[in-house]
C-alpha cells in the first residue's frame, strides 16, 4: 500500500473535516427480512473502505442505499455533509423528498456495477460522454477529450468505438470504471466489480482500482477480493447478518481477526 493513502486516512479524522460520506443507523427491510439493522459508516476524503461479508450480509444493499438505488427505511445518509432529505410516502415508507437533490448527489457518487451495466446501444465513447454532457452539462468536445484520456488510462482506447457486447468482461468493467471517472466523482462506489469476471480477467480490473486508490480517490468497495481488501484499502468493514461485525485497519484485521465471525469468514476464503 502506498504511503499517501495511509496518511490520508489517518489524517482525515483528526483534522475534523466533514466526511465525504456519513451513514447513520441505516435500516432496510425487504418484506419481512431485515437486511440492514442499523449500519453506520464514515468515509473521509481519500479513504478506501472495503466492505466485506458473506452473501446476504447486506453489503450491496448498503452501497445501494447510499446513492438511493434502494430507499432505506430509516437512518440518514450525508454526502459531503449534505443530508439526503427524506419524507413520508403514501404507503408509510419514506421516499426522497427532493428528486433534484438525489440526482445532484448521485452525479457526485459514480457507481461501478457487478454486471458493468454499460449502455449496450452506445459505443464505449458514447457511454463515457452521455452523463457528463447530459447531467453535468459540460461541452461535448471537452467530454470527448477527457473520455479518450480516461480510456487510454484504463488501457482500452483502441476499443473506444466498440459496443459493450463486443468486449471481454474485463474490458467492459474497465470501460465502466472510466465512465464513472468521467463524472469527476467525489466518491466512487464499487459493487462487487470483479465478481462477474473470469478469474484471469480480475487482475486487469484490480490494477485499475489499485491505481485509483493510490491517487487518493475516495472509494467504497464491496468485494470478495481479500487481497485487495488487505493490501489496498485503508479500512475494512465486515458485515454479518445486516450488522457491522467489525471495522478496522486491514493489516490488523487480517492478522488478528477481532471476532469469531470474521475469523470464520477469512478462513473460508483461505481454504
Amino acid at each position, binding site marked *: 500500500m502506498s504511503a499517501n493513502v495511509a496518511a490520508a486516512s489517518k489524517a482525515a479524522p483528526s483534522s475534523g473535516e466533514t466526511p465525504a460520506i456519513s451513514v447513520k443507523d441505516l435500516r432496510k427491510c425487504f418484506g419481512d427480512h431485515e437486511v440492514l439493522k442499523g449500519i453506520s459508516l464514515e468515509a473521509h476524503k481519500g479513504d478506501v473502505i472495503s466492505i466485506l461479508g458473506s452473501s446476504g450480509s447486506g453489503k450491496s444493499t448498503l452501497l445501494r442505499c447510499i*446513492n438511493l*438505488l434502494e430507499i432505506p427505511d430509516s437512518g440518514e445518509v450525508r454526502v459531503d455533509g449534505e443530508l439526503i432529505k427524506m419524507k413520508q410516502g403514501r404507503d408509510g415508507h419514506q421516499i426522497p423528498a427532493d*428528486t433534484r437533490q438525489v*440526482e*445532484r*448527489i*448521485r*452525479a*457526485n*457518487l*459514480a*457507481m461501478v*456495477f457487478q*454486471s458493468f*451495466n*454499460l*449502455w*449496450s*446501444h452506445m459505443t464505449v465513447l458514447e457511454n463515457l460522454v*452521455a*452523463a457528463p454532457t*447530459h*447531467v453535468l452539462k459540460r461541452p461535448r468536445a471537452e467530454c470527448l477529450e477527457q473520455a479518450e484520456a480516461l480510456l487510454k*488510462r*484504463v*488501457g*482500452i482506447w*483502441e476499443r473506444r468505438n*466498440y*459496443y*459493450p*457486447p*463486443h*468486449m*471481454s468482461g*474485463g*474490458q467492459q468493467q*474497465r470501460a465502466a470504471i472510466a*465512465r464513472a471517472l468521467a*463524472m469527476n466523482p467525489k466518491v466512487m*462506489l464499487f459493487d462487487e466489480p470483479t465478481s462477474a469476471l473470469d478469474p484471469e480477467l480480475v487482475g*486487469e480490473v484490480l*490494477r*485499475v482500482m489499485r*491505481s485509483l486508490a493510490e491517487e487518493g480517490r475516495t472509494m467504497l468497495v464491496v468485494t470478495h477480493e481479500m487481497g485487495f481488501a488487505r493490501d489496498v484499502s485503508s479500512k475494512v468493514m465486515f458485515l454479518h447478518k445486516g450488522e457491522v461485525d467489525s471495522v478496522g485497519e486491514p493489516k490488523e484485521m487480517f492478522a488478528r481477526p477481532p471476532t469469531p465471525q470474521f475469523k470464520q469468514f477469512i478462513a473460508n476464503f483461505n481454504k
Partner: protein
Amino acid sequence: MDFDFYLSTMWSVLKALPLTLEIWFFGIAFGLVIATGLTWLRASGYKLGEYFTRAYVFVFRGSPLLVQLYLIYFGLSQFDFVRHSPILWPILRDPMYCTIVAMALNTAAYESEIFRGALRAVPVGQIEAAKAFGMSAFTRFRLVTLPIALRLALPAYSTEIILMTKATALASVVTIMEMMGTAQKIQHDTFRPIEVLTCAGVIYLLLNLSIARLFAWVEYRLSPHLRPPPEQSQLVKPIPEVL
C-alpha cells in the same frame, strides 16, 4: 393463359394502390399517436389510466376489425347527435375517414401492448446505471429506456404494420375502391376470380415484401451492438499493459 387480361387487370388494380397506401399511412400514423398515448397512460401508474387502457385493449383487440368498421360506418350514423355534430358528422359520413378511424383505433390496441412489453423488457441494470449517474427521469427515458425499448419493439411492430397493410382490404366493404375493391369489381364484371385475385394477391405480397425489407434495414442500422464486431481478429490481440 390470357396474358393481356393479366396485364390489364394488374394495371387497373395498381391504379388503386395510391388509395390503399393513403388508408394504410393515415391508419398507422394516427394509430401510432393513440398507441403512444395509451402506453403513456398505462405506464403512468394511475389506476384509472390502467383500467382504461386495459378495457380499450380488451375491446379493440378482442373484436374483429370488420365489426368495428361496420359499427363506426353504419352504426354511429344511427345516432342523431352524431348526424348533427359539426365535428363528428363530416368524419363519420365519409367511408374513407371511417376506415382510417377504425384502423387507427384497432392497431393502437395492439401497438400499445407491443410498446408496454418492450418497455418492461428493458434490462433493469441499464436503467439503474442511468439513475446512478444522476440522470433525471426524462433524460433517462430519452437516452436509455426509449432507444432500447424501440429496438425491442421493432420486430413486433413491423409485423403489426404488415397486418395493417392487409387490413386495408377491408375498406372495400364500405364502398372504397382501393385495390381489393377494384379487384372485386373486375371479378364481378368478368367472372374470372383466379386471374383477378391472383393479381391483387401478388401486389399485396410485393407491397409487404418491401415493407418487411424496410423494417429489416432499420433494424439492422439500429443494432450494430448485436452483430459480430467489426474486426473479429482484434479481439484476441493481447491487451496492452494497464497504465
